[in-house]
């Protein structure tokens, strides 16, 4: 990939296991993510990709193993605490604030950066107003970046799907994350929308230096944009490495295409 310097390990998943009752969603998974890289997690349906992402995001608490961010291990954290540590995410089935405008959706992403308290906001106190303006500037930059200027004031629920996906990405970017988790960013998109989204992902990575962990179904897209790929199947890791290595890994091929008998 381009001249981004791939750095040290920023996110380290170590021997992670997750069970729902008797069902093992993930068993004994380890991999690492280096700073500034685009790391993909792929696998067939039900492989445990989303569960993996939800563990990193603090939605699920794994029973065994650990996840550490910049060497700091966290076990029992909720999504909010994870967000405070600089991890943002997008959602597979769009979880936007549908009743709000594009602009407001992105502004909520600045929540952690706001310092003014409720009363200062209520009386429109000078500092609270200034802060709102400052955050607005950041958000406008992201809106420009994602090329969604014409839709700023439109209620998100009324936008076409591809644009909603972009707003979802924008909201996550508004938190200025160090690590960005993308849950099937291209699911349900047509070819053109997929190309747009790939370009945005690469640009985010390139311009902001954001480390990206993405889950994807579409093998071809993943192979094009990621630096390294983890392959899961039935909750186990069956491959890990450069896209070319993974593509030719017999176990991966059989997981995707079925075993040849």
């Amino acid at each position, binding site marked *: 990939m381009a001249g981004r310097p791939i750095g040290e390990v920023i996110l380290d998943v170590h021997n992670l296991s997750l069970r729902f009752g008797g069902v093992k969603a993930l068993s004994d998974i380890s991999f690492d993510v280096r700073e500034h890289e685009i790391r993909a997690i792929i696998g067939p349906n039900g492989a445990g990709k989303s569960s993996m992402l939800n563990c990193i995001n603090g939605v699920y608490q794994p029973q065994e193993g650990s996840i550490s961010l910049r060497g700091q291990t966290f076990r029992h954290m909720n999504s909010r605490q994870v967000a405070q540590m600089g991890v943002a995410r997008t959602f597979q089935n769009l*979880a936007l604030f549908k009743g709000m405008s594009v602009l407001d959706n992105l502004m909520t992403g600045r929540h952690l950066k706001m310092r003014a308290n409720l009363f200062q906001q209520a009386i429109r106190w000078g500092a609270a107003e200034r802060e709102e303006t400052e955050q607005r500037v950041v958000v406008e930059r992201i809106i420009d970046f994602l090329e969604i200027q014409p839709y700023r004031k439109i209620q998100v629920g009324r936008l076409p799907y591809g644009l909603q996906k972009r707003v979802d990405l924008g909201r996550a970017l508004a938190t200025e994350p160090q690590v960005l988790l993308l849950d099937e960013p291209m699911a349900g998109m047509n070819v053109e929308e997929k190309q747009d989204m790939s370009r945005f992902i690469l640009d985010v990575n390139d311009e902001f230096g954001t480390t990206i962990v993405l889950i994807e179904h579409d093998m071809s897209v993943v192979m094009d944009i990621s630096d390294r790929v983890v392959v899961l199947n039935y909750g186990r890791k069956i491959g890990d490495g450069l896209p070319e290595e993974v593509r030719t890994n017999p176990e991966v091929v059989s997981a995707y295409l079925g075993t040849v008998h």
Partner: protein
Amino acid sequence: MGPFLETLLGGLMVGMLYSLVALGLVLIFKASGVFNFAQGAMVLFAALAMARFAEWLPHLTGYDNKFVNNVLAFAGAALVMVLFAWVVQKLVLGKLVNQEGITLLMATLGITYFIEGAGQMLFGNDIYKIDVGMPKDPMFLFEKTFQGGILVNQEDLAAALIAAVLVALLALFFQKTATGRALRAVADDHQAAQSIGIPLDRIWVIVWSVAGIVALVAGAIWGSKLGVQFSLSLVALKALPVVILGGLTSIPGAIIGGLLIGVGEKLSEIYLGPHLGGGIEIWFAYVLALVFLLVRPQGLFGEKIIDRV
């Protein structure tokens, strides 16, 4: 025309108060998905607190100025409601995160009985007076246009005004402040809100506090009309048909629903009463709600819930 307008106005004013109670319900439901059965009891509890504070204050401070007293009593009662919100979040709802809606409803049912009892234990169970110095005399409007003019209760008028101002302030708060935006975000999607760092528990305390203060305003107005007594929590039951009419998730719906029911019950009492034998006011709201449940269960403004199969 005169009597019709008179009834209409009367209905609008009663309706505004129904709207206030319904508003509390909608706020909490939108932000946390909890149907707060305790809203009526909160109205009673808040009104009791205010009535008693207003009574105790002059004895404590030895300073008897009705206006100052009422303001202080209101502030005190508001503080009690904020504290109540915090306790509910800490001891009840905070422990029930991710539980079924029905579980949360049952929890609020428990809260209802608890604060009905606690309120009367702390503040007594007589009939108390809230006297905020509202003008009691009726007045006549448009005496030139209509014969005899239109009789308007000044107290109702003041109450409706206060309610309208409160609603406007709340709308501003929700639309124009960062916290309001966070509240709307939580109402739309919990998980996403949390993933960008919005603290759910704090948002819920704020929502319950706002609902508590809305309950206090409603309680103070009702209380100054009817006296603060146990029946106040029953008057609040009228908020149930209001939210069925307006939709549980819509703030404008709560307001319009309240007005419709207020007007509807007054008009039907006057115009249908003689044919049906009167007493319509008592059941009108519930029958209307029943019709709505059959025809348009999501209410006038509510979101249609489509379950994916």
